[in-house]
């Protein structure tokens, strides 16, 4: 498990500062995992600069953790905070859908 906190301290969109806790489940360093992580980082930097925290969980190292978040598909991105929990599966190559999934953008937009 490795944590990569990215905090820039600037509230861009909201007056209230809030922390986005994101967890990315992967299974080894597969191309899909790498793509997903890169996509996630890019999206976060663009939309949540300084307000997010990404935790990458490699299930090959910690298979026990898959149970807690009901992980079936790999890669899965879980938005732990803010609630409610959201799950986004896939390599996050579809930015629009990722934003909808993270509820950074309503699906009508």
């Amino acid at each position, binding site marked *: 498990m490795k944590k990569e906190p990215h905090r820039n301290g600037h509230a861009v969109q909201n007056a209230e500062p809030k922390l986005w806790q994101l967890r990315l489940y992967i299974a080894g360093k597969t191309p899909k995992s790498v793509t997903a992580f890169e996509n996630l980082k890019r999206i976060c930097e663009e939309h949540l600069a300084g307000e997010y925290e990404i935790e990458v969980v490699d299930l090959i190292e910690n298979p026990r953790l898959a149970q807690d978040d009901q992980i079936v598909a790999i890669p899965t991105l879980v938005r732990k905070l803010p609630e409610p929990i959201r*799950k986004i599966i896939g390599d996050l190559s579809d930015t629009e859908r990722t934003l909808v999934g993270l509820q950074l953008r309503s699906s009508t937009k």
Partner: protein
Amino acid sequence: MTKTVMKPKSAPVSLPKCTTGIQGLDEITGGGLPKGRPTLVCGGAGCGKTLLGIEFLVRGAVLFDEPGVFLAFEETAEELAQNVRSLGFDLEDLIEKKKLAVDYIHVERSEIEETGEYDLEGLFIRLGHAIDSIGAKRVVLDTLETLFSGLSNDSILRSELRRLFRWLKQRGVTAIITAEKGNGSLTRHGLEEYVSDCVLLLDHRVEGQISTRRLRIVKYRGSSHGTNEFPFLIDEGGVSVFPITSLQLQHKASAERISTGVPALDAMLGGQGVYRGSSVLLSGTAGVGKTSLACHAANACCQRGERCLYIAFEESEAQLLRNMRSIGLDLEPWVKKGLLRFQVARPTMNGLEMHLASIHKQVEAFQPQLVIVDPITSFVSSGTGPEASSMMMRLVDYLKSREITALLTNLNHAGTVLEQSEVEISSLIDTWLLLRDIELNGERNRGLYILKSRGMSHSNQIREFLLTDQGVQLTEVYLGPEGVLTGSARLAQEAKEKATAVERSLEIERKRGELERRQQALEAQIAVLQLQFQTDKEEMERDITCEQAYLEKLEQGRHDMARSRKSDSNGHIVTPKKARK
């Protein structure tokens, strides 16, 4: 929990098999599910797929020390444990002992957004982790297809499922995958494409308001198997599958004979009664005494110190005991001694399978030497005809395989052919006794004869069957010119015969007297004749003497005369012959 584990067939098994431990299933699959391969179990809602899977794991863990993983897609581990607790399965205990791992996999579509490429590696990892944590040999995936409703990318799912089954094979675990039955296909999402080794189809049908569960082996690659639909049952002991007929016909045949409880009937059956472990059918119309005869057999069984299970569908235990007392048969002591057990149930209370299962269970628990089913015709009312006969076949088969003598009564309805049992099991029956009414002279009497009795010489005569204060008795019927005479006609005939016999003996006496008299007369006559003869003889002898004396005198005279004439001495006085000289 006592479960019999059927041994796999001794014939060369081409495929290694994994004994399920589920009653009957190993028998029809010829030893179990294909070892190290996935098996698909499909069927509609509520047909028992999950339970079959659970039992497969529990039996494996308890009986064969093979730990198992249950991957639940529909229920949480707690719900599952609660659901099967009523069947006597303690999942929590097994989980604690590391014999079982339950993982609940929940995929909620509304929570999930799909963005691009993914795979189901998470599922693999979880399954792999569960398998590794307890060293599982068995895996159940219940119901994998829910993934299709949780994830929208069909092509990814399909390729991942294909990979999953391959992976399961590689891991060498014996797996059961359950799936909902689809419209016109075995499974809703065509899983049968991927699982090709063994497919079981479960079914739950309601016929005549009575439901029956059935199991069919759709395919079993590399193994012979029963292809029929086998009824199965879920009760407090779990799943039981009943082979319609056991695949082998290898009953042991005992040469021991046991009494039917009626000495005269034993005498008709070659003098020794029926074979132990054979099946005896008593058929007849209402009120001919089937139950009475059956109770005699029960009594005889208990007298031998053996146990008897009496399954009654028409009378309550108390009623039966009271009624039998009226013919001088007190069965109550046997009940108290624990040698006789009644199982009384209304035939419509359960479906056929439940009846069969409860009989099985009673037999297992009580271990009787004699089982009486009175009457088997009741089963017809709780199922259709063919079902009832297949059930009877299985029952008879089962009892035979355990060397338990079966006594079945069969109620023939008036007007039907007597020599035809209502549920058409005659071919299974070793000894068939027919009780029938004989109507004559305004009377209705009972007759009994042996329709068949395999493997023994038996009487071909009709006997009159009497219910007396001392129980059942058989007497010979009178066969007269007007046919068979029974009841008072027989008694009248017997009286008549007795009278005739007395008359005859008197006649003989008279003749004997006459003969004596005649002999006496004859002897008297002989005496008279002899007397007369004696008299005649004496008279004749006297005459002869007189005659001789006269002749002598004459000679003497002639001699004297010649001497007096003084002629030559030998002159003409001699005989003419002498004179000529």
